C-alpha cells in the first residue's frame, strides 16, 4: 500500500480508558542453564505483585484473560509454549492467546491485552513475554532467526539475519551519515551511553563502563557496525497488568493511562515501494522540501533509510494522545536500539528529529539523563534501562521490559527498584559503589517503541499520569 484511505488513517481510540496497574521483570542473562522458562515468568509475575503490595495469588484473582508474547517456538522445540506457561502460572481455565511479531512481540502483546480491556471483554489482563535463545549453538540460532526473513527469497542467502538488516544500515550510513568519522563516533556514543546506564540496572546483563574508543576497536560484524554496536541476545521474562479505571484503582493508588498503537511494513525490505512521507504533528510539507538535495541518494521514502512501521505507530499514537512534539510532551523514552544505527533511524521515524537529522539528538546531549554538554537534565532521556544494547534483548519480553522501565520512571520509583541492594544480591551481583539514580525528576509521560527485525512490525506504547493527559 503506498497511498492510504481516510479510514486507514483514522486516529485510533479505546472504547474506554485502559490503565497500567503494575509490571515486573525477571533477571536477564545470556543463559539460564539452571532455570526453566516458567521459573523466569513466575519471577516476573511475583515482581509485579510485590510492586503494588500484593501476593501473586491476590493479583491473579483480578486477571480475566491472558496474552503471551513468545517469538521463537523453534528455539525451544516446543509448540504452544504459551499454554505451558499459562498452566504453570496457574491461570487455567482463563482465556489465553499467543502473540508473535518478531522483535515487536512484547509491544504487540501489550497492544492485544490493552484492546481486550478497552473493549470491555476483560476488566483486567495479563501481558507476559519471554524468550529462550540459549538452547541451540549460535550458528544454529542465527539460522533460526533468519527463518523470520522470507524463506525463499532471503533465508537461503547466508542464513544470517544480520545481512538482511545491515544493508539498510549501510544505506543510512552512506546517505544520511555521509560516511563521516564524526557520525561513526556518534553511533559509538549510543553504545557507551546504553552500556553505561545498564551498569546501574540490576536486571540487565551487559552493564559496563566503556569508551567510544572501545566501541570503535570492537570487532567488525558488518561494516560500519561493530560488536559493541549490536544488541544482546538474552533469556528472561517481563509482564504488565492492565485494567479499566475502576478495577485499576481497586488494585493500586496510582495507575497510569495507556495508549498503544501498531504499524507494519513489508517483511522483505526488497518490497518497499516509494511513497510520500506520512507527516507527524510536529512536521509540515516544508520539513522535507529539500531532503533529497540535502542528502543525495535519499530520494526514496522510506527506501532503506527509514522504518515506515515506526512512523505509522507514532502517527497513530501522537494524534490520539495529542502529543504535538515528542521532545516537548514526553519526559522519557525507551527505544528499540537493536543496533546503534537503527536507534538513530528511529529518532527520525518517531519525530524526535526530522529525517536526516537524527544524530543531533545524541550530539546535542538531549538523549542523556544528564546532558554531558551542559550538566543539566537531558531534554528527553532515552533508554535509561540500558536498552537492548546494555540491558537485554529477550525478544518476547523486550517490549514489555521497556514499558516496565518507563512505568518505574513515571511512577517516580526508578531508584527504589533499580537501587534496591537486596535485588542486586538476589541476582548474585554487587550493587556498584558508584551506583547512580537515573530517575527523571518529575516524569509524567513516557513512551516505548517495540520493533521487529527489518521493520515489519512496530508498536508505540505511551504511559501517562492521568492528570497529565493531553486528550481531554
Amino acid at each position, binding site marked *: 500500500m*503506498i497511498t492510504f484511505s481516510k479510514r486507514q488513517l483514522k486516529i485510533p481510540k479505546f472504547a474506554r480508558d485502559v490503565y497500567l496497574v503494575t509490571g515486573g521483570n525477571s533477571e536477564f542473562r545470556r543463559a539460564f542453564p539452571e532455570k526453566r522458562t516458567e521459573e523466569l515468568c513466575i519471577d516476573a509475575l511475583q515482581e509485579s505483585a510485590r510492586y503494588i503490595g500484593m501476593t501473586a495469588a491476590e493479583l491473579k484473582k483480578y486477571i480475566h484473560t491472558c496474552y503471551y508474547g513468545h517469538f521463537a517456538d523453534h528455539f525451544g522445540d516446543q509448540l504452544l509454549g504459551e499454554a505451558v506457561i499459562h498452566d504453570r502460572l496457574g491461570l487455567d481455565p482463563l482465556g489465553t492467546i499467543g502473540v508473535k511479531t518478531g522483535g515487536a512481540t512484547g509491544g504487540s502483546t501489550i497492544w492485544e491485552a490493552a484492546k481486550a480491556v478497552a473493549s470491555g471483554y476483560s476488566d483486567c489482563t495479563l501481558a507476559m513475554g519471554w524468550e529462550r535463545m540459549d538452547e541451540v549453538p549460535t*550458528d544454529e540460532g542465527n539460522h533460526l532467526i533468519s527463518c523470520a526473513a522470507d524463506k525463499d527469497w532471503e533465508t537461503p542467502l547466508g542464513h544470517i539475519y*544480520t545481512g538482511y538488516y545491515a*544493508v539498510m544500515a549501510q544505506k543510512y550510513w552512506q546517505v544520511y551519515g555521509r560516511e563521516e568519522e564524526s557520525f561513526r563516533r556518534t553511533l559509538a556514543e549510543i553504545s557507551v551511553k546504553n552500556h553505561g546506564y545498564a551498569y546501574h540496572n540490576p536486571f540487565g546483563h551487559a552493564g559496563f563502563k566503556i569508551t567510544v574508543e572501545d566501541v570503535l576497536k570492537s570487532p567488525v560484524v*558488518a561494516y560500519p557496525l561493530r560488536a559493541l554496536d549490536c544488541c544482546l541476545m538474552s533469556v528472561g521474562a517481563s509482564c504488565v497488568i492492565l485494567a479499566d479505571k475502576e478495577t485499576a484503582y481497586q488494585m493500586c493508588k496510582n495507575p497510569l493511562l495507556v495508549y498503544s498503537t501498531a504499524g507494519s511494513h513489508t517483511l*522483505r*525490505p526488497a518490497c518497499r515501494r516509494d511513497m510520500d512521507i506520512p507527516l507527524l504533528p510536529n512536521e509540515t510539507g516544508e520539513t522535507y522540501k529539500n531532503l533529497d538535495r540535502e542528502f543525495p541518494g535519499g530520494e526514496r521514502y522510506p527506501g532503506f533509510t527509514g522504518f515506515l512501521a515506526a512512523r505509522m505507530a507514532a502517527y497513530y499514537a501522537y494524534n490520539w494522545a495529542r502529543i504535538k512534539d515528542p521532545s516537548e510532551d514526553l519526559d522519557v523514552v525507551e527505544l528499540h536500539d537493536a543496533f546503534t544505527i537503527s536507534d538513530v533511524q528511529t529518532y527520525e521515524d518517531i519525530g524526535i528529529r526530522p529525517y536526516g537529522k537524527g544524530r543531533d539528538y545524541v550530539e546535542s546531549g538531549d538523549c542523556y539523563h544528564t546532558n554531558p554538554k551542559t550538566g543539566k537534565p537531558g531534554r528527553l532521556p532515552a533508554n535509561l534501562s540500558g536498552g537492548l544494547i546494555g540491558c537485554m534483548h529477550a525478544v518476547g519480553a523486550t517490549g514489555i521490559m521497556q514499558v516496565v522501565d518507563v512505568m518505574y520512571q513515571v511512577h517516580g520509583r526508578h531508584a527504589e527498584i533499580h537501587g534496591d541492594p537486596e535485588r542486586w544480591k538476589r541476582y548474585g551481583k554487587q550493587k556498584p559503589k558508584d551506583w547512580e539514580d537515573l530517575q527523571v525528576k518529575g516524569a509524567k509521560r513516557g513512551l516505548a517503541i517495540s520493533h521487529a527485525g527489518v521493520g515489519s512490525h512496530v508498536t508505540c506504547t505511551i504511559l501517562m499520569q492521568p492528570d497529565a493527559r493531553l486528550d481531554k
Partner: protein
Amino acid sequence: MSDYTIKVVEGKYKLSGDFHTIEPNKPILDTAGKLCGITNPRNMVYTHSYGGEAPFFAGITKGRLIATRCDNKDCKDSYESVFLPFRIHCPDCLERTTEVDITDIANKSARVYTFMVCERSGAFNTLEKPIRFVNIEFEGVTTILMSYLLGKQEPKIGMKVRPIFRTKSPTYTITDLAFVPAETAEKDLPAGFTFSK
C-alpha cells in the same frame, strides 16, 4: 544423512525413503555431575511448495529473470507496476499479475542500491564467505531485489552489475541467481554460472 525422494503425482506429494534420522538424547551435566538438562537432536527434511512463484525459481535455472506486472487497469496504485521479488498477486488490487521476462532490462540497467559485506553466516549456509549482499534496482521495476555479488570487486552503491545464473547443477533456490560487476567477461564467471540465455 536422510535418503529420500519426492514427486508430485496427481496433485499429491509422493514420498519415499527416510525423511528423518533418529539420534539418542544425551544428558547435560554440571561439573559436579548433577543433571541439568537433556539434548534433543532433530534431523528432518521439510517439503515446501513454491506455488505460483515456481516460474521465477525455474527461470533462474534457465538463465532468465521473470518478474510480474499488475495489468489491472482499475488498480489505482499499481497498474503497470513491475515487481521483483515476483508477486503472484498485485499487493494493491490482489488481481493475479502477469509474468514478464525482464532479463534484458536487468542486463542493461541493474545497479546496486545498497550492499553489505558479511563475514558471518548461520548454520546451513552454502555461500562462500564473506557474503557480499547487494540490493539491486532495475529500470522500471518498483521494488529492490536482494541478492549477492560474486567476482573480485567490492560492491559500491550505484555500481552497474549484471545478473548471472547457476544453470549448471542448479540448487533450485534463490542462490542460483547472483550478480557480477557489469564489465565482467564470461570466462571470468564463477564455476557453474553463466550469463542470461
